[in-house]
């Protein structure tokens, strides 16, 4: 059975992502050990808390280089919600905190005139790749506005266009929660696992 390593980031609520991967035949382990994060067959960077707190826990565990390295090399990594934002250089949420800086972009808060946080299902537009058009479940107050160069990008709209997901090689980073996005999310996770070279286990049906 393939094993996904979920980065332990403190108070992360990981039960839903563990359950979603289990339904696709993956076992999950939690780790904050740099070597395990570097070498994981499949890595999940879950989203929880603030940008500053998230980077703080990654730095305290010595995970910054391991994460940056495996993402630069396109190794099987799934980043969810805040996990996507942590790939950026900085965030309006936590001024002065440097992110993983894989993406040369800054995370900003949703503008005035829309519900913040964005809670619920929003339409996703894409032009192929792992992320197909459909509806995804979001719970976020901050987002990326610009498509990073060299990444295939899917979009949603909440008072203006924002980045729904980006992918490059076997790295997929989603602002939405695929583990809570019903059958659409499940199908996307299955495509990501296939791209990572994982053959589905018996539990996958």
């Amino acid at each position, binding site marked *: 059975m393939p094993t996904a390593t979920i980065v332990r980031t403190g*108070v992360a*609520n990981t*039960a*839903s992502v563990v*359950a*979603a991967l*289990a*339904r696709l035949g993956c076992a999950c382990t939690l780790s904050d050990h740099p070597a395990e994060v570097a070498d994981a067959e499949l890595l999940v960077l879950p989203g*929880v*808390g603030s940008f500053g707190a998230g980077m703080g826990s990654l730095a305290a565990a010595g995970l910054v280089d391991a994460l940056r390295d495996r993402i630069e090399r396109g190794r099987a990594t799934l980043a969810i919600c805040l996990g996507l934002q942590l790939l950026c250089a900085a965030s309006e949420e936590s001024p002065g905190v440097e992110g993983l800086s894989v993406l040369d972009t800054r995370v900003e808060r949703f503008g005035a005139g829309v*519900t*913040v*946080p*964005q*809670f*619920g*299902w*929003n*339409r996703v537009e894409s032009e192929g790749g792992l992320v197909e058009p459909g*509806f995804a*479940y*979001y*719970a*976020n107050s901050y987002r990326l506005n610009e498509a990073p160069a060299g990444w295939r990008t899917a979009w949603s*709209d*909440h008072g203006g266009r924002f980045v729904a997901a980006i992918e490059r090689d076997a790295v997929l980073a989603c602002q939405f*929660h695929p*583990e*809570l*996005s*019903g*059958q659409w*999310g*499940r199908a996307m996770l299955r495509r990501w696992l296939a791209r990572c070279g994982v053959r589905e286990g018996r539990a996958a049906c």
Partner: protein
Amino acid sequence: MLTRRVIPCLDVRDGRVVKGVRFASLRDAGDPVACAVEYERQGADELVILDVSATPEGRATALDTVAAVRAVLSIPLTVGGGVRAVRDAEALLGAGADKVAINTAAVDRPEILGELAARVGVQCVVLAVDAARQGQGQGQGWEVITRSGANRTGIDAVAWIRRAVGLGAGEILLTSWDRDGTREGYDLALLGAASAAVAAPVIASGGADHAGHMIDAMRAGADAVLAASIFHDGDLTVGDVKLEMARAGLEVRL
């Protein structure tokens, strides 16, 4: 653009669904796992489970129920009932809930909302409010009811909602005490007042009989509608309601 959400609610006591779910397709309509699967299949946008167990043993069973539902459910799961302390919320989230609903404990000690938000994030904190009309007729506002109706607090419901969002509630599950169980439609004035008071999403609860009531609630300002008995009875599916909403021009996930 965010879609409007339709949210079925299961009342669970000692691990079994109460208030009679009557799906002809289910072998065991008292099984919360089977009900959850059926509601996701119908197109539910989220699921709420309210634990109405009265005993510590029942509450322990609720954690098993949450874990069993989580194993099969791939939409968001909110769990409420008996959340008195931060550790209760953490136990439910650890078992597989995505959000926790808190009611009486927050009225008794509002600071718990901030403590919860700091610990688990506002996206996990749902404030449940039971509101009853004050006086006769219109214009006199609503007061917060706690302990399943046993206690009228005298607290203005809209003011409480505004304060709670400031403290750390991410969403409001707003039940009309006057309409709950009547099937006369949601309290639209209450929904309008509450949704105008806060930017956080408001989930309408109490009084739905048909899709028209739900469309009215959304036009009054609700981001989502919650219902129990009309879905449990099986004559109306979540999918039916969402089709009606789409026909009425509301954005829904179909």
